[in-house]
C-alpha cells in the first residue's frame, strides 16, 4: 500500500456514533460505529469489527472486519477479514478474503496496466 501524503490523517467514527447521510473527504477513515448512506473517500477505509455500514463504500484500500451491506469499490485492494461480512458487489484490483469471512455478491477485478499485483491476486469468491 503506497503511503499517502495524508497518511497520518485518519478520521474515526467511534463505536457509539451513528451517521445517516453521505460522507466524503480526503482522509483515511476508520469506522467503528454505524453508517447509513454512502462513504466516498480518497483514502483508505477500515470497517472495524463493531462497524456496521449500510452504504456503498469507495476508497483506495478497503479493509472490512465488520459488516457492510452495500457495494464496495476500491481503487487498490479489498481485504475481508474473518470477522467481516459483506453483502454487495465488490470491485478492486486485488481482493483478499480470509477464511471465515462472509461474502455474498459479485466480484469484479479491475485490470492493472502495470500488472504489479497480477501474480498475487486472490480472486473473490462468487456466491449466488
Amino acid at each position, binding site marked *: 500500500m503506497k503511503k499517502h501524503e495524508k*497518511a497520518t490523517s*485518519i478520521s474515526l467514527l467511534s*463505536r457509539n*456514533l451513528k451517521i445517516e*447521510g453521505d460522507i466524503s473527504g480526503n482522509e483515511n477513515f476508520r469506522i467503528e460505529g454505524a453508517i447509513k448512506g454512502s462513504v466516498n473517500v480518497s483514502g483508505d477505509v477500515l470497517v472495524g469489527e463493531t462497524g456496521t455500514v449500510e452504504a456503498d463504500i469507495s476508497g483506495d484500500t478497503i479493509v472490512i472486519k465488520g459488516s457492510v451491506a452495500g457495494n464496495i469499490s476500491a481503487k487498490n485492494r479489498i481485504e475481508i477479514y474473518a470477522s467481516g461480512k459483506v453483502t454487495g458487489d465488490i470491485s478492486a484490483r486485488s481482493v483478499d478474503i480470509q477464511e471465515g469471512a462472509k461474502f455474498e455478491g459479485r466480484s469484479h477485478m479491475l485490470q492493472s496496466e502495470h500488472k504489479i*499485483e497480477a501474480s498475487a491476486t486472490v480472486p473473490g469468491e462468487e456466491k449466488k
Partner: protein
Amino acid sequence: MNILGRRKKDEKNELLLEIPDFPQNTSYFGKSMVIQGDVTGDDNLQMDGKIEGSILLTSDLHVNKSAIINGNIKANSITSSGIIKGNITATHKLSLDKTAKVNGKIITSSISMNEGAIFDGEMEMDARKVKK
C-alpha cells in the same frame, strides 16, 4: 505471501488501525471530511471538517477552528472555535473561543465567550429549559 510485504494477519494495518491520539470514546473528523446528514450517539466528537445536518449527542462536542457546522446541535458540553450556523443546545455548558462564530439560537445553562467570538442570535439561559 503478500506482495506488498507489509501486511500480515495481525499486523496492524499501519495507517488504518492506529488511532494514536484519541481516546476510545471520541470520534474525529478531519478537515477535508464532509458529512451530509445527521450524527447521533453517545460518544464525544471532535470536528475539523464540515457537517451539513444535525448533531445530537449525549456527550461532548468540540468544533475546531476549521470546522463548519450547518445545522442544529445538541450536546452535553460544547466548545467551538469554528463556525456554527444553527441552533445550539448545550445541556451542560457552551464555550466559544476567539475564532468562533455562531449564527442561531443558543440554549444553555452556562456560557463563556472569549473576546473575538462572534455570536448573532438569541440566547436563552433558563435553567429549567435545559434538560440534564
